Each structure stands twice: as C-alpha cells, then as structure tokens.
C-alpha cells in the first residue's frame, strides 16, 4: 500500500483515505497512512479535504449504507468529531437557507423549531405543542360553528325562496283554474221553486243553491261563459301566432257566448261555423248585420256548453254579399277546456 502526493491522487487513494477516516483499515495499514501523511504535507491536506468532503456527504445523506453506518460509529460517538459534523451541518444549512426564498422566514422560525425539537427543552416543547393544539382546536371549532350558522342561514333563505316560489305557482295555478275570461254570472230570480223534471214549467238554466226555505232563490252558478276572440285574419288562427288562450267552461255553465270582432263590416250578413280541427263543420249560424256598414261591429253567437269537448276547435266567420257570394273573413282556433262533463255531448246534433 502506498500513498503518493507526487501526482494527483486517484480514486484508489481517495478510497483508501476514506477507509482510514472510517477506521476500516487494519492497524498496520492505518499506521502506514499516518506515517505518510506525517511526512507529506500535500497528502495531509488531501486527507483533511477528504474528511471535509466525507462529512458533507454524510450531512447531505449521500453515503452508502455501509459507509454511513461506519461514519456514525466513528464520528457521532466521539464528541470532538461530532462537533465537526455539526459545524459542517450548520454551514450547509446556512448556505441552503441563504439560497432559499424562504430563508428569512426559516431563520425567524428557527428558535421555535429548536424549542419544539424533542429532547431539548421538553417542558417548553410540551407547552408549545399544547398551545398549538388548543389554538388549532379553537380555530377548527370556530370555523365549524361559523359554517354551521352560514349553512343554516342559507337553508332558511332557500326555504323562504321555495315557499315564495310555491306560492307564486299556487297563485298561477289558481289563476289558470279560473275561467278565462271570467265567467259572467247571471243571477236569476225564480218566484217559485221548480221541482226537477216537472213538466210544463220553465226549467231553470242554473243550478239551485241550497236555500233555507221557500221563497226567492238566487242562482249564483254562472250560466253563460263569454269569450271574446281577437281580430285575426284568415291564415293565422290566433292574433299573434301564439297558442290560443283556453276557453275554460266551468262546471254548471249552460251557454258559451263567443264574440268575434269583425275585420270589415260591409256585408249584409255573416255566417259563423264551428268544426273540430281536421273535422267537418258541426255547427253554423247566420248572423245579420246590426250596425251601419262604416261602424265597427261584432258578431256574437251563443252555443250550448255541452257542445264543446276539451279539445281544439276552429271557428270561421264567413260573409255573404248582396249577390250571394261567400267570403271567409277570419278563422279562430279555440282550445276548449270543459269542466262540465255531464253537459259534454260529443254526439250533439248539429243545428245547421
């Protein structure tokens, strides 16, 4: 075995020095290394550099397992050698910390970190840990309470919104269930009550409300449902092309009055006919002109409520001129909703 300083030491020399430092040599080999570094200043310097490098490698965790274990046996067990390790560790930590962008924060937190390191000041560490735990628990509890109240408030708001929306829908539903337009209630006084099915008497058109006794009976059930159809042309069944408003026939209604505003009032007579969509005309009625030709006019026709089923109908207004020629003036689509099924007679005779 020889160590020379005449030329640059190779890997073999370095390894031998490392083995010397880790006390991995026999006593005779060790003595030879010592003898040579006593005689050779350069080799001695090389040995010091190798030791410094070895300590750095250990601090940075770069030693292989076997070397690391040997290093710990030799260096960490000896207070003096251990101080070398600590000195290098501090230096490397400082170099690393100065390079890091969080260096300032790390330096500020260093005393706290040291205080919390086990085995140094145990009591202080426990107190700090307990404080930290307490603060964390307080923070977590506060956050949970805050979140709970926030969620509760949100729930209340959502519930209020839902109730409001539900009320709105209820109102709309109620409005839809009302006859549109509002049915005209016709009150009729009957001098005497009429027995149902009595012959020769005048059969009331409305249903009798319960009465406390004999005498005047007020009929409050709507008898006639009036429905005004907007002015349209021949091609468009509705005024604005949208779906027609439903013609709602309430329970108990007897007559349906349809009013059509005429586009032009210059014909002597008009004919209003009614048919199902895609079906033949099942009802028609001639209506004479009532007002002068220049004045606007309406055509009103009364139809039995039982004539309608809950479906679509097309109502057509036809004019007849003096020569007898007919001209279609308007067409109207009617969406009938009949709540009076007993009156609905699909097969009702056509009074044509």
């Amino acid at each position: 075995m020889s160590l020379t300083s005449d030329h640059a030491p190779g890997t073999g020399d370095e390894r031998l020095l490392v083995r010397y430092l880790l006390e991995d040599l026999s006593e005779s080999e060790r003595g030879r290394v010592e003898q040579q570094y006593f005689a050779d200043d350069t080799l001695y310097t090389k040995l010091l550099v190798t030791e410094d490098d070895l300590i750095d490698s250990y601090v940075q965790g770069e030693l292989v397992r076997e070397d690391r274990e040997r290093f710990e046996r030799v260096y960490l067990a000896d207070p003096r050698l251990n101080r070398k390790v600590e000195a290098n560790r501090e230096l490397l930590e400082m170099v690393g910390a100065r390079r890091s962008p969080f260096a300032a924060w790390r330096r500020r937190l260093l005393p706290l970190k040291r205080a919390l390191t086990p085995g140094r000041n145990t009591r202080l560490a426990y107190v700090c840990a307990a404080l930290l735990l307490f603060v964390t628990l307080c923070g977590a509890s506060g956050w949970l309470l805050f979140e709970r109240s926030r969620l509760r408030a949100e729930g209340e708001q959502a519930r209020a919104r839902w109730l409001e929306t539900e009320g709105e829908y209820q109102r709309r539903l109620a409005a839809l269930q009302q006859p549109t337009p509002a049915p005209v209630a016709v009150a009729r006084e009957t001098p005497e009550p009429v027995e149902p099915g009595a012959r020769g008497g005048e059969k009331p058109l409305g249903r009798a409300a319960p009465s406390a006794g004999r005498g005047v009976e007020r009929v409050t059930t709507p008898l006639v449902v009036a429905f005004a159809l907007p002015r349209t042309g021949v091609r468009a069944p509705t005024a604005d092309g949208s779906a027609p408003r439903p013609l709602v026939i309430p329970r108990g209604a007897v007559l349906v009055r349809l009013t059509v505003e005429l586009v032009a009032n210059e014909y002597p007579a008009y004919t209003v006919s009614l048919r199902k969509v895609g079906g033949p005309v099942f009802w028609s009625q001639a209506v004479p002109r009532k007002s002068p030709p220049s004045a606007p006019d309406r055509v009103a026709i009364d139809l039995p409520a039982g004539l309608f089923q809950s479906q679509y109908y097309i109502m057509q207004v036809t004019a007849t001129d003096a020569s007898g020629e007919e001209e279609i003036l308007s067409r109207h689509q009617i969406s009938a909703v009949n709540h009076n099924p007993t009156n609905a007679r699909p097969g009702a005779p056509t009074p044509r």
Partner: protein
Amino acid sequence: MRLVIKSDESRFDDSTAEPSEPPSEPLSGAGGPWGPFDGDGPSVVERFRALQSKLIFYFERRHCFDPEELADETLERVMRKLCEGTEVLDLTHYSYGVARNVFYEYLRKEKAKHKYSDEQRRRPEAAAGDDEEAETRERRLRCLEGCMARLKERERWLMFEYYKYKGQRKVLHKQKLAEHLNISREALTLRIFHLKRRLKTCIEDCLGND
C-alpha cells in the same frame, strides 16, 4: 545521544507493540540549534504549526480526550530532545514515533480498554444542559452568519455555487464550476476547504469574543 528515525514502514506494523522510546542510532543529520526547523523553505513557525496540526489530527483520529494537550506533550518531548542536541534527520517521522509513544502512555494512563471511556463519550453539550446548548447553537449560528457576511462577494458566490446541488448533479456542477474558474476539480475542492477553514476559525474567534 543521537536519534535516528527509520523510514522503514515495517516498524509500525505491529499494532500491539508496547510503547517504546524512539530508537536511537548514531546518525549525522541537520545542524543548527533547531535541527530540522532550520534552513530554507517555510518559516519555522509555519513548519511547527503544520506539525502541530498533524499531531492534533492524529490524536483526534485516535479518539483521545484532549488532542491538543497530547500534541503539546509530543512537541515538548521533541523539542527537549532537539535542545539536548539530538540530531534528527526526519523530524515529522521522529515526531510520529514520539506521538505513538505518547498515545500508548495515554492509553495506559486512562486504562481504557476501548477507544475512550463512557464519560468521554458523553456529549459535553448534553452535560451542559438543553438551554445552554440551544444558546450556544444560537450563538454559533449568529457568528456563522457574521463570518459569512465577512467573506468577499465572490467567495460567498463560490460557496453557494459549490453546495448548490446534491447527488449526481452535484458532481457535474462542481466539474462545470471548476471549468468556469479554469482550475482543476481538486483545486476547487481545496479552495472550498480553505474557505470553510477560514469560516470555522472566524466562528471560533467570534465565540471567544462573544
């Protein structure tokens, strides 16, 4: 009496040898009152310090409790011999022989079967107490920061660059750094080593003055 230190390596092969006096054989050697410390080259002080450093390192590697004291003891014995007119051809070799004897005497005195006693194994910091240890460490760090600040800008840069990476990347980076500085890798390592020594000396001074 004239002292001769053979350079024969086999003399140190016997690890179990009892401590002995340095062998004495008549030999013509260096003249002058300080023997090998005289002559051209590095000054006496430098050579003396170099030898002292080696002796301290030797006793340190032998896990002695107070290497400085044993190194002083060795040097004292060497000086005594030189003052007595003993001619020594190879002072370092001779000093090594004396150091070995001092070490064996130390072992005998301490009656240590192992490298060092359990008492010595105990870390002085631990005995000093946790608070004191933490305070010392804090002071060391403050000193280290001050000493780092005292380095030249280029030296600090070199230090940071040298320790920039770890593992395989570190090796490549050091190679590049050496090429950048136009020096060999060994020279770079040596430069860093000297920088760190300066820092350590600075820290010791700082702790002493604190």
